[in-house]
């Protein structure tokens, strides 16, 4: 069966000054990536990636981007990504997290990565309320994984999370 095989590159946008929401559209990311490939690999790179490249997913809160590209030419894309310095006037760079063959594998990775980031956030908490909020979020997302019907679960405010 002939089908197009793709690679999905999962990246995180690292801004100079971290903000909660970075309002950006998918087409802006697409143009910036196209420009970087053109500058790095010229007309050949632009032509080869034009057909299959697409920004599949963008999350402005976690600043995660999922870019699809044809499997044969993913190296052209991945080697041009480090040269991106800014989008518009905002200085940032791409930090590539994972490259997978399907969107589902990238999603699985993203879930694990999110849990790791929550653990890092727990280390950085300064007040008890922050710590409780992060612990509650961690437990909530691990519960969601295991339970099929999570609406029935009640967790009270009196739960003691302190060690």
């Amino acid at each position, binding site marked *: 069966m002939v089908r197009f095989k793709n690679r999905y590159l999962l990246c995180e946008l690292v801004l100079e000054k971290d903000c909660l929401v970075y309002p950006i559209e998918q087409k802006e990311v697409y143009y910036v990536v196209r420009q970087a490939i053109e500058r790095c690999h010229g007309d050949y790179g632009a032509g080869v990636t034009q057909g299959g490249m697409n920004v599949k997913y963008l999350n402005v809160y976690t600043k995660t981007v999922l870019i699809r590209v044809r499997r044969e030419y993913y*190296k052209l894309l991945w080697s041009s990504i480090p040269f991106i310095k800014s989008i518009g006037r905002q200085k940032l760079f791409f*930090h590539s997290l994972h490259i997978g063959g399907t969107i589902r594998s990238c999603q699985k990775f993203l879930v694990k990565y999110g849990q790791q980031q929550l653990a890092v956030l727990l280390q950085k908490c300064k007040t008890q309320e922050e710590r409780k909020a992060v612990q509650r979020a961690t437990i909530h997302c691990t519960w969601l994984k295991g339970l099929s019907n999570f609406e029935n679960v009640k967790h009270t405010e009196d739960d003691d999370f302190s060690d």
Partner: protein
Amino acid sequence: MAKFHDLNVPYTTDVKTFKQILKKSIELGYEVVAVNHVVTSLAKKDAVKEAPAHVPLDDEILAPLKVKAKTFRQLSRLTVTLKDTQTYRLGSGPAQSYDILAIQPTSEKAFQLACTQLEIDIISINMTEKLPFPIRLPPVKAAIERGVHFEITYAPAIRDTTARRNIISNALSLYFMCKGKNVILSSDVENAMEVRGPYDVANLGFLFGLNEAQSKDAVSMNCRSVVLHAETRRNTAKAALSVTKVTDVAEKHKWKVRENRAAMPTVGDGDKDKSSDSSQDDDTDSDADDHHVKKKKRKLKT
């Protein structure tokens, strides 16, 4: 899985920028960073100073590594720009206080000297401009045999387009001589926004002619070889023996000291006379009471 190293973070007196660079590096996954002090002219007598102390980092900066139960290592590195008329003695003096030694040759003679004779770990050629000398095969071969690595920096490529072209062309001319062996990729960043993650940097190896395995090695295994090469150059005699004072022995090596063996639990028959056991020991430290000779195994990279 080898750790990711960044062996060229230039030293700045601006502590705030420096801490930001280290913070970004840790967030992106680097575990070993070498702070680079560059000495351009050896005209003054005290051009090379003692290695300064490590910058202390807060727990907040180290949090991403703490979560994975990993530690952060800061090393100090000295890069000397060498012209052929000067012969700087790197074997003694303040240069030995640095963990890693590097040379930036600016002429063919200096390059030959660095590859064949000088006791250094890294040869860093300035690739942002046209090479002042052609890279030839014999010195490169000699350097690879000695365990000296060649460095390619990527931050100038991010800053400037002409530098990018020059770096790619010079890196390729290096690749044709060394076939991708003994190459390390490092950053040489000026601010925190120029740091790139280790997988991104490994992919830049594709632009420099390296294949996938070689480019991944360039950020991890080859850098580890450099650090080990530097350690054996500094601490050991002929890379086989190293001497440590009994009081300075690390906790995990304390079992090797004879005095501590009486306190250690013995396996098997506990009724044996411990003093008769130790007198039959074939130790070499019987004549040197204060020093404990420790045989260091040097793992050679194949």
